[in-house]
């Protein structure tokens, strides 16, 4: 650890705001959170990724410039796709959204080297409070792919409240965090009382943000061009990117001016005719365009207050977070609703990163003297599918019965009792869902398991206890117990999903590693590049992940073979991770860990040893079943 990370002895833990538009990383130095700037001195890293014509990965502001110049090779606002399994095509290669995010996080990680050196760094990464389980998981994976040990995923408004709470921990205050970012909207009510920061309620919309305003402006401009020239500029990839860029400028201009001029002499060339755009938009017109979204945010504000049993008068302070809160109309709506001016002592762009650093500091011990304690809430209800009586003797399946209701303080454990519906029923399928709809079909399925061995009895006579445990990391453990026989069955929802993907995680990580290694010095080595290209051609899109297992410039057939074998072995080991014998599952976990460590370090000898051990054991296990 270098001299900078003082307070000496604390683990290096950083806080990261992985935003739709910008990302940043912060840490605690001498009891105060600081944002770590890029080598060029910027505190905000635009969340844009570009793969240039020489296959170099470029992150940040230069990548943002590429959005217009090379729209097919650059990507922005990837956060909006997090949690989706649909790949994004970038420079002809397919990436999962979390892989793109991992590239952004890797860039942030490079800023940390001067402070922490190359050692393992733990990270607290923020997500919108209203992010779903899948989105949170994707975020955690992105962090791990970037080489962080992801200590905790925390909610953005909670982070912002922590940044505020560090300096206002005494006394009793109710604060409202209005977080309107690039892609998502969150609102939380937080009570700070004698150093305890208590999230009371949280609500939001994960598809509402500055990006929507930009695209609305793009439509507005496109309609103008279309009425004048009969050409829709949105059909042209480059013109579309240009309009998006113009839209962002309009938004910025209108934050301080009343009118913005839009000038683009050549938007695109259609059949040899240059298509231009020259118009003006007033602040009032812009507000009209985005009013429906703003109204929705206000409806959510009023919701979240009633969930916390508070009125606008009970709110002492309002914390504005996210770049979109710079829009004057947003500020005036909020101050009108609460009859007070909004808070501006913390930079709305940095509040989340600073707050994440505070959480990091609380975890590492660097802030333990502050006495700050935070309690957060579950953003969704979690429950099971049940049948409900429709009328005498008839049952309607597919109803959602919440066990942990939203805004319950976490960690928490909740139990409910259900019964069988049929006479003589001997098993039940416990299906776990997350959401607020009365019907499970409209909620998000988290997993399911079967509880068998119920003693046959009359319908409704054999009670079954279903218990949910939800911890700070958002891991839900669901179990069911037949009360009369004490037979218990359970699943850990998070683990179940993560286990299967151990092998694909490896592949992703290796693939990103190879992309990353394509720095300028590597491009000099023509041979290595050629080798990469050949592989890429051979395997096509997905296949190039194999080529990337070994860092470029260091490839050998033997290493390649070993890594391929490691992947196969990891897949073979996967079923044993959940083996009923704890001895076997424990051993399998250890093997996976060793294999992954050896593969990551590129230590071929260690990898060979780990593989030998795994193969021996696998042979033994397979033979005995």
């Amino acid at each position: 650890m270098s001299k900078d990370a003082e307070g000496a002895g604390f683990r290096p833990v950083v806080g990261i705001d992985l935003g739709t538009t910008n990302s940043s990383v912060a840490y605690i130095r001498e009891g105060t959170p600081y944002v770590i700037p890029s080598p060029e001195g910027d505190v905000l890293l635009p969340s844009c990724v570009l793969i240039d014509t020489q296959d170099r990965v470029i992150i940040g502001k230069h990548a943002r410039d590429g959005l217009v110049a090379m729209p097919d090779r650059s990507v922005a606002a990837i956060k909006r796709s997090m949690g989706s399994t649909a790949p994004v095509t970038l420079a002809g290669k397919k990436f999962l959204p979390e892989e793109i995010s991992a590239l952004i996080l890797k860039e942030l990680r490079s800023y940390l080297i001067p402070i922490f050196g190359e050692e393992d760094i733990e990270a607290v990464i923020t997500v919108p409070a209203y992010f779903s389980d899948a989105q949170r998981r994707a975020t955690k994976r992105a962090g791990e792919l970037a080489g962080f040990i992801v200590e905790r995923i925390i909610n953005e408004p909670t982070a912002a409240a922590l940044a505020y709470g560090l300096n206002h921990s005494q006394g009793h205050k109710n604060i409202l965090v209005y977080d309107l970012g690039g892609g998502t909207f969150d609102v939380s009510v937080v009570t700070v009382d004698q150093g305890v920061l208590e999230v009371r309620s949280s609500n939001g919309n994960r598809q509402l943000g500055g990006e929507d305003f930009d695209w609305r402006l793009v439509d507005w401009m496109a309609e103008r061009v279309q009425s004048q020239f009969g050409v829709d500029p949105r059909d042209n990839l480059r013109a579309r990117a240009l309009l998006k860029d113009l839209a962002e400028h309009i938004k910025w201009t209108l934050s301080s001016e009343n009118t913005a001029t839009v000038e683009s002499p050549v938007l695109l060339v259609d059949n040899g005719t240059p298509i231009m755009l020259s118009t003006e938009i007033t602040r009032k017109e812009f507000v009209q365009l985005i009013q429906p979204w703003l109204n929705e945010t206000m409806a959510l504000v009023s919701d979240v207050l009633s969930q916390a049993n508070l009125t606008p008068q009970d709110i002492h302070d309002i914390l504005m977070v996210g770049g979109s809160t710079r829009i004057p109309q947003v500020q005036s709506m909020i101050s009108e609703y609460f009859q007070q001016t909004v808070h501006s002592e913390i930079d709305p762009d940095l509040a989340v990163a600073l707050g994440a650093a505070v959480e990091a500091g609380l975890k590492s011990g660097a802030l333990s003297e502050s006495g700050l304690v935070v309690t957060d809430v579950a953003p969704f209800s979690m429950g099971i599918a049940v049948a409900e009586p429709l009328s005498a003797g008839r049952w309607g399946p597919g109803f959602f019965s919440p066990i942990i209701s939203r805004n319950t303080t976490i960690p928490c454990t909740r139990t409910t009792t259900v019964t069988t519906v049929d006479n003589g029923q001997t098993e039940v399928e416990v299906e776990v869902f997350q959401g607020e709809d009365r019907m499970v079909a409209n909620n998000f399925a988290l997993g399911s398991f079967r509880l068998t061995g119920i003693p046959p009895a009359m319908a409704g006579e054999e009670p079954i206890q279903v218990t949910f445990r939800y911890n700070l990391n958002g891991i839900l453990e669901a179990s069911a117990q037949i009360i009369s026989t004490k037979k218990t069955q359970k699943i850990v929802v998070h683990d179940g999903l993560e286990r299967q993907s151990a092998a694909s995680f490896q592949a992703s990580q290796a693939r990103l590693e190879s992309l990353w290694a394509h720095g300028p010095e590597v491009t000099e080595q023509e041979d290595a590049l050629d080798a990469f290209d050949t592989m890429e051609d051979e395997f096509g899109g997905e296949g190039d992940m194999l080529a990337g297992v070994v860092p470029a410039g260091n490839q050998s057939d033997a290493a390649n073979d070993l890594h391929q074998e490691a992947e196969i072995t990891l897949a073979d080991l996967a079923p044993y991770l959940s083996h009923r014998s704890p001895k076997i599952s424990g051993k399998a976990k250890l093997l996976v860990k060793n294999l992954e460590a050896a593969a990551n370090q590129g230590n071929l000898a260690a990898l060979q040893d780990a593989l030998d051990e795994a193969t021996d054991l696998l042979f033994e296990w397979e033979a005995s079943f």
Partner: protein
Amino acid sequence: MAKKPKQHHKTKKPQRRPSNPPAPVKASTHYQVLGVDVKADAETIRQRYLDLVKLFSPEGEPEKFQVIRGAYEVLSNAQTRRQYDLERFYGASLQDLSAQAQMLMAKERVQDALSILEKISAIQPSAATYLKIAQAHSQLGHVEASDTAFAMALELAPDDAKKIELLINHAYSTPDLYECIRQIEEIAQDYSAIKSTAIAQELFDLYLDVDRPKDAMKSFSRLISRRKIPTRHDWEVYLQWIDAMMYAGLDAELSTTIAKRVKPALLRSSGQPYMAEVTAELDLRRNEATTRKDWPDAVTYTDLLLTLDPSNHALRTARRRYMDGAIILRQLVGALSDFSLSNAFVSYLTENYGKLHANLSSAALDEVLQERPDAPFPLGSHEVVKYMENQYPRLYRALQPDLIRWPSESAPR
């Protein structure tokens, strides 16, 4: 998986004195967890909670924190605190008690269940508990006590919708079913108080049970026209409802009435993810109607399908064919009424074929004709044939072979 089992009265088990509910063994009370006096005020409880959270944070001591938080959540809210105090006094949680009562009811140990239910209602009076008390009394034959308990339930019901729900649940355990329905109608007025599909369906069933299908239809169709975007479950019920009404076959206008009510609901649901299933269900019914030559039903289902897919050419063509069939059927009724056979014919057909399900088989007609030899016109006579040719050309063409056949095979006179 079931949530709340309804009562079952299927098994008889020997009556036994209830054993007292076992008091849950608790290491400590919520008060002891927080280390406050049972008379502590809200301020003290809050302060104590804040102090404890700093010692046992969710981060550092997650298990202990949960216990502290659990105690605080109960004691920081005046209502839950009062309930907790009462539960402590009675030694069992309300949830345990009501589960126990439910089990006893299911085992037909009504008297035992009743005493527990009364205990619950003393701790936390609620409409649901009083309804159960009323049902228990009614099972024991205590008419007056049952009525009193039910009146309490009605009084405690928070709104009209809940009252209707209570009345419907009560309907089968009261001797005066009709009075119950009258009360429902009084509260429901134009049925606008009925908001839930499940309740609407219960009422629908109730009306069918007392043989008032028209009211059944009316109450339910109001619900359909009010629902903004019906859910998939709504549609399951709607389809059942359509089936029931079609089966009951009220009168010739029924199909149009149903279609009028259901179409807007279909339009409102279009685009919902479950609509493909609903469409498939409708199409299945259309095919079934076609198979049994039930042309009016086939037209209705086709109309509903066309609402969702107005440009479906094949459907349009099919509808014309069904319409022909339906018109022929209707004309047949008309024609036969001209021969003063309508009453006998229609009642025969409705009895034996549900609703005009007859496929005009000559055998069926013969049967009718033979039973009614006193028709004013001798069937098959020249006058009849001429008359039908003029008045009902389409029917005439459809029936011609039969008409020609009638005189020879079953000439009544």
